[in-house]
C-alpha cells in the first residue's frame, strides 16, 4: 500500500492541477483562435500535460519519504494572515497609520518585549521609510 508522503501529496496536487488547467481553466480563461502556429492555449495545454506526467512520476516514485510539519505551517499561516490584514488596513487607512501597528504586532508575536527594540522597529523604521520615500524621493506611499 502506498504511504502518504509530502512527495505523493505534491504529485497528486500536480496531477489534479494539470487536469483542472487542461479541462477547465485554459478553456475558460483563454480565447479560441483558429489560426496561427501558437494559439493562446497551445503553451498552457503543453504545460498542463507536463504537470500531469511529472506529477504522476512524483506520486509514483517519491524521492524522499518526508512528512509535513503542521506546526511550522500553522505558524506561517498566522503571520501570513497578519500581513494580509495589514495590507487591507494599509489600503483603507494608509501606510503612516498602519505600518507602525503592523511592525509592532509582528515583533510582539515573535516574542520581542524590549522597549528599545520595539520603539526602533515600530516607530523609527517606519518613520525612516516614510522620510526616504515621501520626502527624499518624493514618491507617494500607499
Amino acid at each position: 500500500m502506498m504511504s502518504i508522503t509530502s512527495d505523493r501529496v505534491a504529485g497528486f496536487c500536480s496531477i489534479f492541477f494539470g487536469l483542472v488547467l487542461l479541462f477547465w481553466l485554459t478553456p475558460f480563461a483563454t480565447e479560441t483562435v483558429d489560426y496561427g502556429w501558437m494559439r493562446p492555449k497551445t503553451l498552457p495545454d503543453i504545460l498542463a500535460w507536463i504537470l500531469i506526467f511529472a506529477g504522476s512520476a512524483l506520486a509514483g516514485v517519491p524521492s524522499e519519504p518526508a512528512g509535513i510539519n503542521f506546526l511550522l505551517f500553522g505558524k506561517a499561516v498566522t503571520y501570513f494572515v497578519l500581513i494580509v490584514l495589514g495590507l487591507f488596513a494599509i489600503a483603507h487607512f494608509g501606510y503612516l497609520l498602519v505600518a507602525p501597528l503592523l511592525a509592532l504586532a509582528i515583533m510582539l508575536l515573535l516574542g520581542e518585549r524590549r522597549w528599545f527594540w520595539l520603539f526602533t522597529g515600530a516607530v523609527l523604521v517606519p518613520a525612516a521609510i516614510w522620510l526616504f520615500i515621501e520626502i527624499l524621493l518624493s514618491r507617494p506611499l500607499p
Partner: protein
Amino acid sequence: MVDLNIILAGFADAFTLHNLLFVLAGVALGQLVGAIPGIGPVMAMAIAIPFTFIIDPLPAIAFLVGINKGGLVGGAIPAVLINTPGTPDAAATALDGYPLAKQGKPQKATKMALYASVTGDTISDIVLITVAAPLAIFALKMGPVEIFALMIFAFSVIAGLIGKSVPKGIIAAALGLLCATVGLDPEHSTPRFYFGWFELYDGLPLASVAIGMLAISEVLRRLASNTGTVRPAIDYDASQSKEDRRISWAEYWSCRITMLRGAAIGTVLGALPGIGSTAAAFMSYAATKQSSKDPESFGKGNLHGIAAAESANSAVMGANLIPLLTLGIPGSVGAALIISAFVIHGIQPGPLLFEQQGRLVYGLFGAMVMANVANLILGQFGLRLWSRVVTAPESVIFSAAILLCIVGVSLSTGGLFGVAIMLIFAGFGFLMNMFGFSTVIFIIAFFLGPRFEISLSQTLVLLDGNLMGLTHYPLALALLVLSAISIWWLGIRGRNQSTNSQA
C-alpha cells in the same frame, strides 16, 4: 575609426573632480536604493533623470551610470544578509551568500559579492570599450530563430539546478512558465488567465513574483521557525578572526575562472537586448556548480557560488550599453533610461554616435571606470555598516523587511495590487519550499517565459512550421547542439556523478 586624440580627450573630460563627485553621488545612491527590496536602481534612475536636465551631458550620464552600477552591489547586500534580494538579479547571490552569512561570516560573504561584482563589471566594461562594435554586429545577427535557440539553451542550463528530484524540477519550471503566460498572448494579443483583472494584461509583475517567492516566503519561514527566543538576524561575532571577516588574495584568486566565466556569460547575454541579468546570474551559477569538483557544497556557503552569480549579473550592465551605443537599441530598462538621458541632452545614440560624439562616448567610458573604483571603495564602508545593521534582533529586521517589501513593490508596480500579487506568491513560495520544490527554477522559468513564447511563435511563423528549416540558421543549430551538450553535462552527467559520490 575613432582618433586616438578623441579617446584621450574623452577620458580627460571624465577624470575631473566635478565628474568624480557626480559618479560618487550616483554610486552611493545606487547602493542605498539597491539594498531596499523592490525599489532598486531603475526607479532611482527614473526619478533622477529630470534632475539631470540642468547639468552637462557627461556628468548627467555619469551620475545615472553610477546609480546603475551602485545598484548592482546594493542589491546583493540584503540578498546575502537576510536572504531578501534587493533586486531580482541578486536572487542567485542569496543561494550561497545567505548560508555563509548564517555561519557568522556576513562580512566575508558581502565582500566576495562586492569583489566579484566589481570584477565582472570591469571585465564587461573592458569588452565594451574595446570590442563594442564587432559584438554589436554579432548581436544583430541574433534573429528570432537564434533567440529561440538561445532560450532553449538557457532552459537547458536549468538542468544543473534541478537537484535530487527531476519531476519536482520539471513541475517548478512548468509552473513558472505557466505564470509567465498570464497577460496578452504574444501572437494574437488576446488576454489569458486575467480573470477580469485588467492589471494583469501586462502579465504578472516580476518584482511582485520574485520578491514574494524569494524574500517574503523566506521571512515567513524564518518567522514560523522562531521558538519564542528573539535572536539577532545574523549571529555575528565581533571578535572573530580576520580570515572570517575578509577575502584573502588566495580566496579571490581561486575564484578567477568562476568570475571570468560569469563575466563572459553576463557580457554575451547583456549584449542581447531583453535577456537580462537575472538569467545571466542563474546560468553562471548553474555552470559553476556543475563544473565544480564539489557541487554538494553549493547552497551551503560556497564562495564560488557568490562569485559566479555576482560577476555575471554585474557584467550585464556594461554589455547592455553595447547595443545602445552602437545601434541605439537599449538592452534593458536601465539602458533605456540612459538612452532617454542621451536624447534629453540632444544626443542620438546609434551607429554614428562614435563618429559624431566620440569624445562624449569615451568620457562615458572613463566615468564607468571611475564608477567601478567608487563602487569598490564605497562598498567597503557600506558593507561594514549593513553587516552591523543585521546584528539587530530578527524581530526588527524581519518587520522592517516586510514593510520595505510592501512599500518597494507598491512603488515599482504602481499600487497595492502588485503587493497583493506579492503576498499570493509569498504563500505559494512557502508551500513550494515546504514540499521541496525549487523556487529558483520557478523564477528562472517565469523570467524566461515571455521571451521563450514569443521567439517560439516567431520561429514557427518564419519556418512555416517546418523545423527542418533550422538548417538554414547555423548559429541557432550550434546553440541547440550546445543545449543538448548542456543537458547531458549539467543534468545527466552531474546527477550520475552526484549519485556515485553518495554511493
